[in-house]
């Protein structure tokens, strides 16, 4: 029932806003729909916490601790983003960068994107998961090119081509999975249901699953933004409207990683070796290092934080690849805090860019004077994302690094170097923007910075105190993933 509401709300929202998305009240409507979704997610979460995993609609939907916490996270971030996008998109329209039609497109697609995300998370069917992921690309690609500037077109084009090709590989992986599964589960629907696959994963054909995992990893890995498949990511983040950058970083990447982790569970079960984990560790480490070194070259601040997203997704992939209770726990926690922090940063960055009329960091100075809330939001957000305690990112990095020092000591020097370089790069670029003498103009609409500080507050809380139910929720999830 909640599931119906959960999926229905954004879908309906998408339809409705497709017609009214340009009206004056559209942003409020958008926020309202997201609120509804969030409420449904909350109810569902409560129920899962209360009485364990559920299967619904002849097993087509499956909710267990692992995905329900992502569902809650997704719904929450989508909601706060919709709050943020109210003034933001108003200002964009006010400055004439957007026509009513595009506002319509934006609002409707925003909801549709939420829908696809939730669908991908909730479905039990690996095939539907794929469909939803592809649909997510389709819904966002036109938003990336929303401004119709040459750069945005190029970004969108790259995003589209690379992700579609990648996702096609994922489809082939899915087919191979099905191919291996149908011998055990027989043809027809059940052979793609994750629960069933999970039960028989022991007997699945290793060679096929090995191949399948490669295709799945390359496919969904493109969406996660693992190096060297990451090239679409910075362009798309930098050129699209900021709310979209926020949800791309905060949600899409997580969901793609979710898909890979689901696959990893099956493959490891089938192969009995640690192949999948090793592959993930390799890609994770590579992404961390590559992203860290690219950070220092950035001039555009949204691009900068896009690369930081790559870095953090790399960390998570590394954590999940490493496996073990501690590392997986760290990975899950990092998923949460990263999407919260990163979206908060993008909110702050968005308003900063609007305020100073540019995304080029060299032209932005003294935010802390021109608008203390934006300035502090950006500074604290940057500190949080850089893993400065007492923010939650540090908590996860703490567990991750110590676990790595124990399980994979060879990797820690790379991580150390990468984190150091990333710190120098990001911090060295954020500090001048925040401090110094101001250069900024007024905004036609008051910025919405509540979301920023709400997110940062939650992240801070997670750094100092993880509520017990959240903790054993993570633990159950970690147990599932192994």
């Amino acid at each position, binding site marked *: 029932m909640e599931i119906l509401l959960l999926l229905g709300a954004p879908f309906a929202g998408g339809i409705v806003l497709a017609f009214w998305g340009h009206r004056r009240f559209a942003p409020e409507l958008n926020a309202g729909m997201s609120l509804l979704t969030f409420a449904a997610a909350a109810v569902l979460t409560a129920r899962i916490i209360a009485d364990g995993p559920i299967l619904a609609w002849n097993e087509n939907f499956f909710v267990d601790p692992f995905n329900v916490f992502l569902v809650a996270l997704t719904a929450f971030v989508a909601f706060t983003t919709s709050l943020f996008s109210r003034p933001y998109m108003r200002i964009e329209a006010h400055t004439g960068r957007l026509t009513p039609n595009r506002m319509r497109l934006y609002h409707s697609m925003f909801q549709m994107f939420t829908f696809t995300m939730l669908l991908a998370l909730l479905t039990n069917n690996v095939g539907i998961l*794929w469909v939803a992921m592809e649909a997510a690309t389709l819904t966002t690609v036109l938003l990336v090119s929303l401004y119709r500037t040459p750069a945005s077109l190029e970004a969108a084009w790259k995003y589209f081509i690379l992700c579609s090709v990648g996702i096609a590989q994922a489809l082939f992986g899915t087919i191979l999975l099905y191919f291996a599964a149908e011998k055990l589960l027989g043809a027809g629907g059940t052979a793609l249901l994750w629960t069933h696959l999970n039960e028989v994963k022991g007997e699945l054909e290793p060679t096929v699953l090995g*191949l399948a995992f490669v295709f799945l990893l390359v496919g969904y890995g493109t969406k996660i933004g693992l190096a060297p498949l990451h090239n679409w990511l910075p362009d798309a983040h930098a050129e699209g409207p900021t709310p979209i950058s926020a949800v791309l970083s905060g949600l899409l990447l997580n969901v793609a990683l979710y898909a890979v982790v689901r696959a990893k569970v099956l493959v490891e079960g089938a192969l009995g070796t640690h192949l999948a984990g090793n592959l993930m560790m390799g890609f994770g480490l590579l992404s961390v290092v590559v992203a860290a070194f690219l950070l220092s070259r950035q001039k555009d601040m949204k691009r900068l934080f896009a690369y930081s997203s790559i870095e953090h997704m790399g960390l998570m992939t590394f954590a999940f690849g490493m496996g073990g209770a501690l590392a997986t726990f760290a990975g899950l926690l990092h998923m949460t805090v990263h999407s919260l922090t990163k979206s908060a940063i993008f909110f702050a960055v968005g308003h900063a860019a609007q305020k100073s009329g540019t995304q080029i960091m060299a032209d932005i100075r003294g935010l802390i004077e021109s608008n203390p809330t934006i300035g502090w939001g950006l500074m604290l957000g940057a500190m949080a994302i850089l893993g400065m305690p007492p923010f939650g990112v540090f908590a996860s990095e703490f567990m991750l690094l110590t676990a790595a020092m124990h399980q994979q000591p060879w990797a820690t020097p790379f991580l150390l170097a990468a984190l150091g370089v990333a710190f120098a790069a990001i911090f060295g670029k954020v500090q001048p923007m925040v401090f110094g003498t101001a250069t900024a103009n007024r905004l036609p609409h008051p910025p919405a910075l509540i979301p920023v500080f709400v997110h940062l507050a939650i992240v801070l809380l997670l750094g100092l105190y993880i509520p017990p139910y959240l903790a054993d929720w993570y633990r159950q999830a970690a147990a599932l993933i192994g």
Partner: protein
Amino acid sequence: MNLPLYAQLINLFAALLLLLAFAMLTQRRILSLIRLFALQGFVLMLSTGVVAYSTHQSHLYYSVLLTLVLKVLLLPWILHRLIDALNVRWDVETLIDIPATMLIGIVLVIFAFNLAAPISEIAGTITRSTLGIATASILLSFLMMITRRKAVSQVIGFLAMENGLFFAATSATYGMPLVVELGIALDVLVGTFIFGVFFFHIRETFESLDIHHLEKLKEH
């Protein structure tokens, strides 16, 4: 060895698909690319039909229908309309010259066959040998996407890749569950529409569909 007739037919179609993939790889003109794409779709439909008939998988007939509508009629038609509207009929210049591409393609085919061999061993279906061909055609269309410089031909490459996947699905596993097939089809359709939208945007921004205009965002 002598396989039953339909198996031989399927293998024949598979071979045809591979041939068509090569043809597209080498084809210079967009129009004929589209024709080849349509033809590929048609062969795909036939093979799917044969599989459906031979294995009495009723739901495969839906996908036959789907293929016919989507890949043989709708998509080629859309593409035609597009290149008419954008009048980009001129030849496609490739990044690597054709013979080299051919050689790489052959290497890929061998690689794909090796890759699929162990799987084909264990395949329960009558159409075991086709998996390798499917893989090969996927890789080939991937290669095509890499080597082409025009947006349109890249898209066609992408669609061809979808065909390969589809063929893999039908021939290797008697098709995916219907709901998934529908979802895939929907995505492909929407995708194509969006591609169309893009062509117009790109065109009106750059006065051309040559993707070397799309090389501004870079790191050095």
